[in-house]
C-alpha cells in the first residue's frame, strides 16, 4: 500500500517538475495523471493494491475539495455588488456547457453506454 502511495506521489512530483521546467499551462497532478496512465499502458494491467488505493482516494474525492471551498469564505466580499451578474453567469454558463458537451459527445460517440 505504501509502495503504491509512493507511486502516486512520484508521478505527481515528476508532473510538478515537468510543469516548472517546461512552463506547460497544466497543474502538476494532471501531468502526473498522464504519466501514471502511460505507466499503466506499459505495464498492461492495474496492480490490485493500486486499484484499491485509488478506489479509496477517489470514492471520497469530494471531501478533498472542502478546505478549498471554505477558502471561498475569505473572498466572499469580492463578489460584492456584482454578486447577481456573477451568480447568473456561473449558473447559466455551467448548465449550457453541460448540455452542449454531452450533446456533442452523445451525437458523435456512436453506440451509447447507459448509466
Amino acid at each position, binding site marked *: 500500500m505504501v509502495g503504491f*502511495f509512493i507511486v502516486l506521489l512520484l508521478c505527481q512530483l515528476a508532473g510538478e517538475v515537468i510543469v516548472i521546467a517546461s512552463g506547460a499551462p497544466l497543474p502538476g497532478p494532471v501531468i502526473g*495523471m498522464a*504519466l501514471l496512465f502511460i505507466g499503466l499502458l506499459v505495464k498492461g494491467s492495474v496492480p490490485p493494491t493500486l486499484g484499491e488505493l485509488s478506489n479509496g482516494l*477517489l470514492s471520497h*474525492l469530494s471531501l478533498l475539495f*472542502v*478546505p478549498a471551498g471554505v477558502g471561498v469564505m475569505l473572498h466572499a466580499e469580492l463578489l460584492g455588488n456584482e454578486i447577481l451578474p456573477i451568480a447568473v453567469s456561473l449558473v447559466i454558463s*455551467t448548465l449550457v456547457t453541460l448540455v452542449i458537451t454531452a450533446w456533442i*459527445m452523445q451525437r458523435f460517440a456512436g453506440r451509447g453506454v*447507459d448509466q
Partner: protein
Amino acid sequence: MNGDLEEIWVYLSASPLLALTLTLVAYQLGLWLYKKAGSNPLFNPVLFAVCAIVFLLTITGTDYATYFEGAQFVHFLLGPATVALAIPLYQQLHQVRRSLLAILVAVSCGSITAAASAIAIGWAMGASNTTLLSLAPKSATTPVAMGISEQVGGLPSLTAVAVILTGIIGAMAGKGLLGLLGMTDARATGLAMGVASHGIGTAQALQIGSVAGAFSGLAMGLNALATAVVIPLLVKLWF
C-alpha cells in the same frame, strides 16, 4: 469553569487537530444527508460541509489561515487523488479509444462554450471587465484557472471563488439536467461534468459509476489544456 473552557478552547484552536476533525465531521454529516436523500446530487456534501464550516468559523471568529493549518492534510491529498484518476481512465481504455475523436470535439466545444457563455452572460448583466476576465476560466481546475486569470488580467482570487461555485453547480445539476433532456449515456454525462465542473464534477461523476468517472477525469485534464489555449484567444477577440 468558564476559565477552564476558555483554556481548552485556546489550546484546541491552536492545534491542527480541531480543524481536521471539523472538516471530516462536516463532510461525514453532509454525506449522511446525501445518502438519506437517496443520493440526490442536490444534497451536495461539499456544499453542506463548506457552509457548516464557514458558519462555525464565523461564529467562533476563527480565520481561514488557522483553519487551513489542520485542513491542509485533507487538501494535500487532492494531488495524489488527481494522479489516481489515471486508473479508472486506464480501465475504460477500450471505451475511450473507440470514441476518441468525439471526446476531442466535445471537450473543445465545451471549453469554448464555458468561457464564451460566462463572458457573454456576465457582460449582458453589466459585470465589469475585470470580473468577466475572472469568470472566463471558471470551468478549468483551480490552479490552471487562477493562472489564466492572472495572465489575462482578471483577479485570481475571484476566479478561485468562481471555480469552486462552478464545480458545485455542475455536480448538483449534471446528471439531473442531462437526464431531463434524455441524455443518459454515461460517457457523455461524465465528459460533460468534467468539462463544465472540473474535479468537483468528477467526484460526483464517480458516484454515478466508473465509466462516467473515467470520462470525467479525462475531460477535466483535457479541458485544463483547452482552456489555457481558448481563453487568451477569446479575450483577444472580445476585449
